[in-house]
């Protein structure tokens, strides 16, 4: 482990933390009862607390700078992207000479040079490359991502990590996101508060145009670009996947879209609009990123120190019509496939068949289940429909549960009578 510096060390100077220490040296009216003013909390923040930042883009640059300047000294950062020239207008840790280099590495170096005593450990790659052991080492995780898919992944991973027998397994997740003048910051305490998946239906979906408009009556440059990507690409290239990170693919789409636009006398098809439409790039405004990143970092600071009450649990900023902000408690969804549903430990005999297990489930009065379908994360056990899958899994009905599952394995149960999914943990007598 790199040497991280706590209070007075060579890299610290008198009164370096004068302002922050005024908050940490004495409790305020809203501090948590567990707040231990003074050296303990400062030591934790500066010597012990390990924080992970996911994303080193528009939000990530701001988050890294804010965390470093508020006293976090052991920061890790993950990002899979390299620096593009178009990032330089707002991602202020990067310079023209950095174009083409990994964001995580350049950002880490910049922060370490600029803020003495702070150790930033970069990882240039995907969050999916890392396993639970990796995420377990952190106290707090802050997300500044623009991808729904990546957020769903980290959210599910952290929710799944919660282990009732290990308090350290519950990692607070602070998630920030922006879209033009709008943004949100939220605190997710996995298994305690609503999770990212719980609020999936609140998301603005990407604008999609009716396919017949694209095909017949284009009016906007976006229609021409979607014509190239949705209709022409698969027509010409068949199953070959469109790689939106490949400049040659974007070039091809741009040229096709431009030709289409000329034909219909539509103006405004540009290379960057083409890239923006196919990658679904949302307009990024530096100042909105700054507001949201700052909110995320204040929450990280409050959670790490207990110096003030933290956000419960969703802060929304709407700057499109004046300035309007709203904070509310987003509620957990009972039927959330990640943190909702019900979980049961069931004990079955080693000789039990799958059929007997299903009968037992149907007879259980407390869960009111009809026609259940069962699977593990790896295979189907028994599906009630469609006919082909029912037939394929029917032989399993006569198999012993113990031939298919080990002690402690989990089964996902769905049924039309359950608005949520049920997970069963199998124990043998």
């Amino acid at each position, binding site marked *: 482990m790199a040497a991280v510096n706590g209070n007075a060390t060579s890299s610290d100077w008198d009164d370096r933390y004068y302002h922050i220490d005024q908050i940490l040296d004495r409790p305020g009216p809203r501090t948590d009862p567990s707040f231990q003013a003074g050296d303990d909390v400062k030591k934790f923040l500066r010597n012990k*607390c390990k924080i992970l930042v996911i994303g080193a883009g528009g939000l990530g640059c701001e988050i890294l700078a804010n965390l470093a300047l508020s006293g976090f000294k052991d920061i890790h950062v993950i990002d899979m992207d390299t620096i593009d020239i178009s990032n330089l207008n707002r991602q202020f840790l990067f310079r023209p000479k950095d174009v083409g280099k990994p964001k995580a590495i350049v950002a880490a170096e910049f922060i370490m040079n600029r803020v003495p005593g702070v150790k930033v450990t970069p990882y240039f790659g995907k969050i999916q490359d890392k396993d639970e052991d990796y995420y377990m080492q952190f106290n707090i995780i802050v997300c500044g991502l623009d991808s729904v898919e990546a957020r769903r992944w980290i959210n599910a991973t952290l929710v799944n990590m919660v282990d009732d027998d290990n308090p350290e397994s519950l990692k607070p997740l602070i998630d920030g996101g922006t879209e033009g003048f709008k943004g949100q910051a939220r605190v997710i305490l996995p298994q305690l508060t609503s999770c990212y998946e719980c609020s999936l239906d609140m998301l603005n*979906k990407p604008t999609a145009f009716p*396919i017949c408009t694209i095909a017949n009556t284009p009016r906007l440059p976006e229609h021409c670009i979607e014509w190239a990507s949705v209709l022409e690409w698969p027509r010409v290239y068949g199953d070959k996947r469109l790689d939106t990170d490949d400049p040659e693919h974007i070039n091809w789409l741009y040229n096709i879209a431009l030709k289409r636009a000329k034909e219909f006398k539509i103006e405004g098809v540009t290379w960057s609009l083409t890239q923006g439409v196919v990658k679904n790039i949302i307009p990024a405004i530096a100042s909105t990123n700054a507001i949201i990143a700052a909110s995320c970092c204040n929450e990280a600071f409050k959670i790490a120190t207990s110096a003030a009450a933290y956000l419960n649990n969703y802060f929304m900023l709407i700057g499109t019509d004046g300035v309007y902000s709203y904070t509310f408690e987003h509620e957990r969804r009972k039927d959330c496939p990640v943190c909702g549903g019900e979980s049961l430990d069931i004990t079955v005999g080693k000789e039990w068949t799958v059929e007997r297990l299903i009968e037992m489930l149907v007879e259980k009065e407390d869960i009111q289940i009809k026609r259940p*379908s069962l699977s593990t994360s790896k295979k*189907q056990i028994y599906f009630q429909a*469609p006919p082909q*899958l029912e037939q394929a899994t029917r032989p399993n009905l006569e198999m012993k549960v113990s031939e298919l599952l080990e002690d402690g394995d989990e089964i996902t149960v769905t049924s039309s009578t359950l608005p949520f999914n049920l997970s069963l943990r199998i124990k043998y007598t």
Partner: protein
Amino acid sequence: MIKIWSMKKSEDAAAKKKPKTSAAQIRVQKDLTELELPETMRTHFPDPSDLLNFTLTITPDEGMYKGGSFTFSFAINTNYPHEPPKVKCIPKIYHPNVDLDGNVCLNILREDWKPVLNLNSVMVGLQYLFLEPNADDPLNKEAAEELRRNRDQFVYNVRQAMRGNNVKGIQYDRVVSF
């Protein structure tokens, strides 16, 4: 650090460790195993262990497309149900809302998709296209034009195309077995 764990202990024991099955996977299991398809629709899984890629065959028992057998491919990605399934018509058919490459104009497959919709809604929507082809959302403009102008000629063209014949210079795939 805030004492999260003490809060957790005061909650009831509803929270338990969950299986590693992804949210998309659970949702697809729920959608598929609760499908109640009429006789006129049938799914097929080339690889039964892969729930994310399959086909749906629609054999309308009424309307202009009666007697035909129309197969669609479904590809579901890991961002389901945030994103809709990708659906294509496999045979080349004469239909105002399906183009010659198999793209389908159905609002819930694109602009009107919502996570509360499911695979059943998509399948029902596809079947509806064969009962009520819609000249207002054309993907095959010629077919739409014909349907609007001369319904009898349109019905004739549909029958020709379904037998694998040529309609206005375009060779269609045979989708009838008689």
